[in-house]
Structures are given as structure tokens and as C-alpha cells.
């Protein structure tokens, strides 16, 4: 038990353990890497191992410190995460309590922007860091999604971040290190987190019985997660299937029959989904296009024939199709579109993804990307019609 149960982040884990062993633990760490690769998980395990009554950076799982850590109620571990600014103080306490219980990332803040405010940093980090530990000897502060700190909050943190009291460790986690002020970054030791291998993701998904993944589903989910088990965990078993279906409905074209349905769909994506979900949706669109591209390349190089159900094609040449359940639609698209079409679409979706990341107006972004999709589809189908006519 302990840090070694973290899968696929060996370099990060060994950096922490060797720093601890040599007595050179930094007072501030910046865990950075893609969303859902286990930055917070490592931070929490790290805190648990520091607090555990056994020597060294291990946790026994049975001492009272470990049991409190499991319930996220250890008085010397302080977990700070972004919450919506519009929330009332009374709701906030409740939200935090339930967020801590349920896994704070699962909180549904909808479309509200969640931030870490200057008041939060002051009362939860600065003041608490300057109190001696409750049990001791360590105090650990985990500031999740630290890039959501407001400028004032980040500035308030600087002094404490630079020289916290003894035996205090502050861990910041972020998937967007560039969004953090340089003054914060320069005060932390950076620890890079990479994506996991597909096998590790699969193992993570199967390891937790609460998630309820069947081995086959876990394989598919791991493929979609792109090395970030947290992404698959958050959408869960049922959620993932639903997301794939809704992407398939749009990419397959059955939702984009005319202008008004296209606008409806764009509005739905823009106003019903939160920003994170929008990002994810665009990622899934890219994965769909990747599948199409792979199939069409295969055909171009004279691999398996254009017939349906080409899943039995032989050997190493067969690409892995992530949208295995929607193979027929993908094949249809691969048949009608050429590489230029696909390239254009991939660029469009990628641009859209970046636009959303930079807080562009989602309604405009989605209308534009769906319009592009419709135009390319139309062009492909008329070209195909013309080609048939000639023949």
C-alpha cells in the first residue's frame, strides 16, 4: 500500500521517495501533466505516507493516521480545490464536505466558473500553514488545479510558498502550467506527470470494483482515455458509452440533416455542456476522425477490401478502431472522404479545441465546427455522386 500502488507514474513517485530518503524534501512541488493521470492521487498518497506512523515514505493502512487519510479527514492534510465564485458561504461548507467525500473532481459545477479565491488561499493555506500541525510532524497542503487561482490568490500565496514553516509541504497540481504566474512556478520544484500506457489505464480501471468495468469495456475505455485513467473514471461506464453515441450521431451525420438541426445541435453543445465536457467532446470528435483516417489509409494502401465487416483483416496491418461499436458509420465516412477532407476537418476540430481552451464563445465555436463538418460531408457526397455519374 502507499505510493507504490500508483500505476505508471514511476518517475514522479521515485523522485518523491528518494527526496524523502535523503531528507531533501522540497517545501513546494508543482505536479503538472494532463488531466486525469493521477496528480492528485499521488499528492494524496504522498500526504498519507508522510502522516503514517510507520517510518519512511510508506503507509501501513491500519494506523489511525492512515484511516483518517482514507476518509480524507486527516487534520494535517489540507485539500483546496476550485469552487464557483457565486456560491453562498453556507452552501460552500456543505459543498466542500460533500466534495471531499465524493471525490472533489466529480462536483458538478455546471457552467459556473470555479476559481480558488484570495480568501480561500488566505484562510485555508496562509493561516493554516502558520499554525503548528494538529498531530504532526508534517503539514501537507494540496492545491488542486492551481491554475484556477486568481491573480490575487496567487500573489497571496507567494510568501508562504517561498518559505513555509518547517515540515510543511505545499503541492500544487495543474494541467495547464503555462497558466500559472512565473512567480509561483519558480518557487516550486516541478514534477512532470506523463500519460499512462494503455495497459496501465486498463489496470487502473479494473482495479477499482466500484467502477464496475468489465474487462472488455475497460479495454475500450482505456483506448478512449488516451493515457488518462481519470478521464475514463469520471465519465464512468455508462457515461462513456453515452458520450461515444452522441459523438457518433453528429459525426455520422444523422443529427446534421438541415440548417436548423445543425444550429440546434451547436446550441445544445454550447449551452448544455460545461467547458471540460466540451473539450472532451471535441477530443472524441478527433478520435473519430483518427479512426476514419486510419481506415481510409488502409484502403489507400490496398489493405483490406472496402467490404463491410472488415474486422477479420489479417495480421499487423489492421488498425485499432476505437469506435468499434460504430464501425459501419466510420467505414462509410472513410469511403466518401479523401485525405484532404479529413485533414481539413482535423485542423478545424483542433482549432475549436484550442478556442474553447482559451474561453472563446462556445456557441460560435461549435456552430463553426459543425458547419465545416456539414460542408465537407456535402462536398464529399457530391463528389462521390459525380464520380458515380461518370462511371
Amino acid at each position, binding site marked *: 500500500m502507499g505510493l507504490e500502488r500508483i500505476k505508471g507514474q514511476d518517475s514522479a513517485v521515485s523522485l518523491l521517495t528518494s527526496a524523502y530518503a535523503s531528507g531533501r524534501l522540497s517545501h513546494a512541488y508543482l505536479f503538472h501533466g494532463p488531466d486525469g493521470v493521477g496528480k492528485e492521487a499521488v499528492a494524496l498518497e504522498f500526504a498519507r505516507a508522510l502522516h503514517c506512523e510507520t517510518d519512511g515514505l510508506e503507509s501501513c493502512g491500519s494506523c489511525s493516521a492512515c484511516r483518517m487519510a482514507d476518509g480524507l479527514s486527516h487534520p494535517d492534510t489540507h485539500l483546496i480545490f476550485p469552487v464557483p465564485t457565486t456560491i453562498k458561504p453556507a452552501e460552500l461548507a456543505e459543498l466542500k*464536505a460533500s466534495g471531499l467525500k465524493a471525490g472533489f473532481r466529480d462536483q458538478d459545477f455546471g457552467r459556473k466558473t470555479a476559481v480558488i479565491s484570495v480568501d480561500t488561499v488566505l484562510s485555508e493555506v*496562509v493561516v493554516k500553514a502558520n499554525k503548528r*500541525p*494538529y498531530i504532526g510532524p508534517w503539514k501537507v497542503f494540496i492545491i488542486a488545479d492551481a491554475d484556477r487561482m486568481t491573480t490575487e490568490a496567487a500573489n497571496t500565496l507567494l510568501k508562504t510558498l517561498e518559505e513555509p514553516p518547517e515540515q510543511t509541504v505545499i503541492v500544487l497540481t495543474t494541467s495547464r502550467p503555462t497558466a500559472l504566474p512565473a512567480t509561483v512556478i519558480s518557487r516550486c520544484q516541478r514534477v512532470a506527470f506523463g500519460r499512462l500506457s494503455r495497459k496501465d489505464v486498463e489496470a487502473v480501471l479494473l482495479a477499482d470494483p466500484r467502477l464496475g468495468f468489465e474487462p472488455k469495456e475497460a479495454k475500450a475505455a482505456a483506448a478512449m482515455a488516451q493515457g488518462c485513467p481519470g478521464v475514463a473514471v469520471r465519465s464512468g461506464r455508462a457515461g462513456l458509452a453515452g458520450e461515444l453515441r452522441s459523438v457518433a450521431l453528429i459525426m455520422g451525420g444523422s443529427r446534421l440533416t438541415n440548417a436548423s438541426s445543425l444550429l440546434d445541435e451547436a446550441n445544445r453543445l454550447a449551452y448544455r455542456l460545461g467547458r471540460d465536457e466540451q473539450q472532451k467532446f471535441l477530443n472524441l470528435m478527433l478520435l473519430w476522425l483518427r479512426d476514419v483516417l486510419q481506415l481510409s489509409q488502409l484502403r489507400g494502401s490496398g489493405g483490406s477490401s472496402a467490404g463491410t465487416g472488415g474486422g477479420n483483416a489479417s495480421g499487423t496491418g489492421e488498425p485499432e478502431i476505437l469506435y468499434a461499436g460504430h464501425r459501419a458509420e466510420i467505414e462509410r465516412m472513410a469511403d466518401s472522404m479523401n485525405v484532404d477532407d479529413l485533414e481539413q476537418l482535423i485542423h478545424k476540430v483542433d482549432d475549436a479545441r484550442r478556442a474553447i481552451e482559451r474561453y472563446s464563445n462556445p456557441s460560435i465555436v461549435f456552430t463553426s465546427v459543425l458547419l465545416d463538418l456539414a460542408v465537407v460531408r456535402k462536398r464529399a457526397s457530391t463528389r462521390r455522386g459525380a464520380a458515380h455519374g461518370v462511371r
Partner: protein
Amino acid sequence: MKFSIARGDLDKAIQRVLAVVSPKTTLPVLANLLLTADEKAKTISLTATDLDMTVTTATAAEVEAGGGITLPAKRFAEIVRALGDADVSVSVDGEEISIRSGKSNFRIVGIPTEEFPTLPKSDMADAFDVDAELLTRMIEKVSFCVSKDETRPSLNGAYWEFKADTMSMTATDGHRLATFSVAGKFKKLAGNDMIVPPKALSHAVRIIGAEGGDGVKVAAHQNHVAFFIEGTTINSRLLEGPFPNYQQVIPKDNDKTLLVGRDDITNAVRRVAVLSDTLTHQVKLTLGKKKLDLTVSTPDVGEAKEELPCKFDSDKMEVGYNANYLLDVLKHLDGDNVQFSLGTAVGAAVVSSAEPAEGEEHTCLLMPLRLNK
């Protein structure tokens, strides 16, 4: 667990710990009291914590069966307060607590004791004795200066230090400072310096006031301090230091001395301050050999002036103070006369009693306001 107890005793015990329970908390169990019963000692104990401060109090009861449970603090307190005069009997079955008194019957649901945060261990054997009355006085004489500014956390507590022959407590918020020291033999305690949060100090004063008792035991640890007052233990986390070197800011070369009656100046300041600026609360002191003028002049509000007798050993000078800070200092000094020792109009004034008690030293420092010419 099962016990019965006089309602008054239980109510008193609850009131000793209730103030620690915070209404809004991220940990549901912190809204509860830990209630344990000891069959052998025939006592029950109540514990409340907000993770900064933990208060435990024990009281005698007819214990039939030992055990422990945590139960909602506010509800339990309300029930006990509202009960009639009959004895209260409490019994626990699993997580359900039933409270009976006369013909009243209550059942409430608790949380198992395992979820209550483990308390820092505190050993009475390491504790030292302090005179209760002295401790109370020391706390009251300095804690009004404790800073509330969260950006300088080490000032958010009172600095309690021990030297071979003195024990002292100091607090400051950067505008004023109060330090109180008392002579005695504290050699064994030297090095136990600590910054104690004001909440723990004021709770200790409250418990001392309510319990009487003349001896208080204090145990200083690395991370926390414990006060043992009769059957009640207050355990508080300490603040991280270092506390600024306050000796450095106490001016040593103030050569002018003003002597004035404490009541005279207190009442006069209170009167003229009515018209002072709501932001700066500035009151101007014009010092003459035998006459002290207090003036307040606020544009758009008005002017106030008062004159009182004094003794001043230098040439005429003018100095401004925040009236509230000045009143705070005057209120906490002893004796009939106060002594201001001054240097320049922009340097700190050292204010102390003109008739200090033997073996004690209570000094306040007050930063002046810059007067507009």
C-alpha cells in the same frame, strides 16, 4: 454506555465545551461532542474540537456502563437546557443515544467515536503550575493587542516566553504593543517559548472565571499547549513563529515624561473622540508643562477640545493618536496615574502605570499618527 447525572451538572459541563463547536465545518463529526463514560472513575467526559482547539471536561456521574459516542452538540445542548429538574439518564445503543429525564424522552443519532479526530496527547506530568489569578491578569493585559490581520500570521497570537527569572507575554498588531512580565523562578521552563492563539487564552480565562480554582497547570509541547483547569483541559495548537524581535522596537531613549491621571484622560478622550474622524480616530494631544489639551478637529463634522492638568518635563509638543488604541491602552493599565514616555512626535510612546505593582512590569507601546499641519 449508560449513566445518570443531575441536569445542572450536565448543563454546566456542556457549556464549558460548547463554544468550541463551530457551526459550519467540513468535517461533520466536528459538529458533535465526544461523550465518554468511565465506569471505574464514575465520571463522564465531554470533548469538543475545531481542530485548532480541543476542550475536554470531566464531571462526576452515576455510571452504570462505560463507553463512548459522539452526538450533535447543539441539539444535545438544547435538549439538556430545556429539560426539567429531574436527573438525566443517558444510554447508548449502537449509534442511537436515548436521553431520559422525568417523563421526557429523546432519541438522537450519533457518529461512532472512531471518526472523532485523534486528540494530541498531553501529559499532566510535564506541566508547570501557574497562579490562576496571575495568568488571567497576564492574558487580559496583553491580548487586546493581538493582531487580526491574517497576512502576518505570527502576530495572530500572544507570545509567551520564559527566561530564568521572568515570564512574559507580548502581543502586537504593528500599531501598538503590550507586554507584561512577572518575576519568578522559571529556569526550568526557559526555552518553552510559544505563540498562543487568542481563542485558547480567552477560553482559559472564561473557564478560570467559571470554575474558580487557584492552580492552573500548563503543559507546553512542540506543537500545542495544554491548560489544565480543575476538571477541564484546553488543548490548543500553537502558531508558527518566529515572533518578531519586539524588544528592538521599544524605544530606549525617550527622554520626555508626561504624568496624567488615568481616569481624567480616559474620560476626556472618550468625550472628544465622539467627533473624531471615523477612519483615523485621530485625537491631538498638546503637551504643556502643567496643562494637557486634547483636541479633535474633523472637517464637516466639528471640533472638540478639552483641557486637563498634567505634569510634563519638557517643552511644548504636539502628538496625535488613534483614540481607540489610546483608550484600549488606558483601560488595561493599573493605578491612578499613567506615564507616557516620549521621544519625538513621530516616535513610539511607551505608556505604563505610574505606580507599577511589585515584581510586575506592564508596558504598552503606541504608535502616533502623523498630524496634518
